[in-house]
């Protein structure tokens, strides 16, 4: 329980740090400090008036505007670094939108448990990554000469919640400019919010391309859940207790929340770094 509280505290601190420009909410203006040169690890719209840094997903789409003349080393470097250090641990500890979904899931209703369908649907985020984050921005670049962040434009509910609403509340003229696209985005946001009440982290599991990117690093990430094969009896309580669509601990759907640790009867799961002992590595 203490570790669950710690995770919640880290999530809240991350959300506050990402959006520390509190004055921006009142004035309706964006932060323009030097930290906007840097990407945060989690999904946080840089059009949020409180945002003090850049969204890695939005930045990646924009950076593709230089492709193929120049490879987007800077943004890809951030994704490689965050992914290799943490993998999808970022989803469970350092993503404000993940926190929002978890809070919504706490609303007491009947819940839709994971099943074969949800496991199959978890592949959808890779399609969204390929189509909306990579292919469409490049397509717009070829056709229009200017890159357009297609995921941000057509899908991302974080942009609507964190960017559109605070800006429109502060500046009503933006609301007058809204049209069909805004209605669509609100629809997507409402769908994600409602589904998050019944389905654990529905956006993270089925839609989020950033989670899809970090999932590629789960097996090699330095920080994560460690399985002590000597203690593990393969009872699968960890998999059954996990609310994500994992087949085993640390696979690409694992967000390293650590809830599996609490149910393991033999203490085979640990979230520490491996130590170098006198003889070999203690896993």
């Amino acid at each position, binding site marked *: 329980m203490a570790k669950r509280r710690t995770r919640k505290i880290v999530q809240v601190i991350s959300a506050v740090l990402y959006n520390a420009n509190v004055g921006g909410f009142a004035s309706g203006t*964006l*932060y*323009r400090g030097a930290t*906007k*040169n840097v990407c945060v690890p989690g999904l946080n*719209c*840089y*059009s949020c008036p409180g*945002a003090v*840094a*850049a969204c890695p997903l*939005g*930045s990646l789409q*924009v*950076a593709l*505007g*230089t492709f193929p003349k*120049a490879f*987007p*080393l*800077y*943004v*890809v*470097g*951030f994704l*490689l*670094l965050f*992914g*290799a*250090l943490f993998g999808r641990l970022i989803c469970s500890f350092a993503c404000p939108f993940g926190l929002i979904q978890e809070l919504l899931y706490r609303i007491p209703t009947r819940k839709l448990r994971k099943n074969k369908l949800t496991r199959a649907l978890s592949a959808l985020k890779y399609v969204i990554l390929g189509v909306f984050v990579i292919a469409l921005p490049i397509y717009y670049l070829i056709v229009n000469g200017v890159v*357009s*962040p297609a995921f*941000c*434009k057509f899908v*991302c509910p974080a*942009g*609507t919640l964190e*960017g*559109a609403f605070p*800006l*429109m509340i502060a500046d009503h003229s*933006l609301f007058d*400019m*809204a*049209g069909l*696209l*805004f209605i*669509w*985005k*609100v629809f997507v946001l409402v769908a994600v919010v409602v589904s998050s009440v019944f389905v654990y982290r529905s956006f993270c599991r089925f839609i989020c391309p950033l989670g899809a990117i970090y999932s590629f*690093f789960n*097996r*090699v990430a*330095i920080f994560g859940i*460690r399985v002590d094969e000597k203690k593990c009896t393969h009872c699968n309580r960890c998999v059954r207790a996990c609310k994500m669509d994992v087949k085993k601990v640390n696979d690409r759907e694992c967000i390293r929340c650590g809830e599996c640790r609490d149910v393991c009867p033999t203490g085979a799961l640990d979230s520490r770094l*491996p130590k170098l002992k006198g*003889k*070999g*590595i203690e*896993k």
Partner: protein
Amino acid sequence: MIRGSTQLGSGPSVILFQTYLQACVIMHAATIDETEAQMRRLTGVGIALLGIAFILLGVALVQYRGVFFKAIMICFECIGIG
């Protein structure tokens, strides 16, 4: 310190041989057990270092300006207007 070591003698060759034995034991103890998990961690370290190198190269090529200028302007696509 190596447990169970014994003094076999005091001649130079014996001392050298003992030193050699002690070095072998230390090397064996310090050898990284190259399990699959360790190889994965090392791969992660390599990718992290590659990421840092990419970031530094990106800074040298001033690619961060693209990120900055996008992040300080209201993204009308993101908020559903553009």
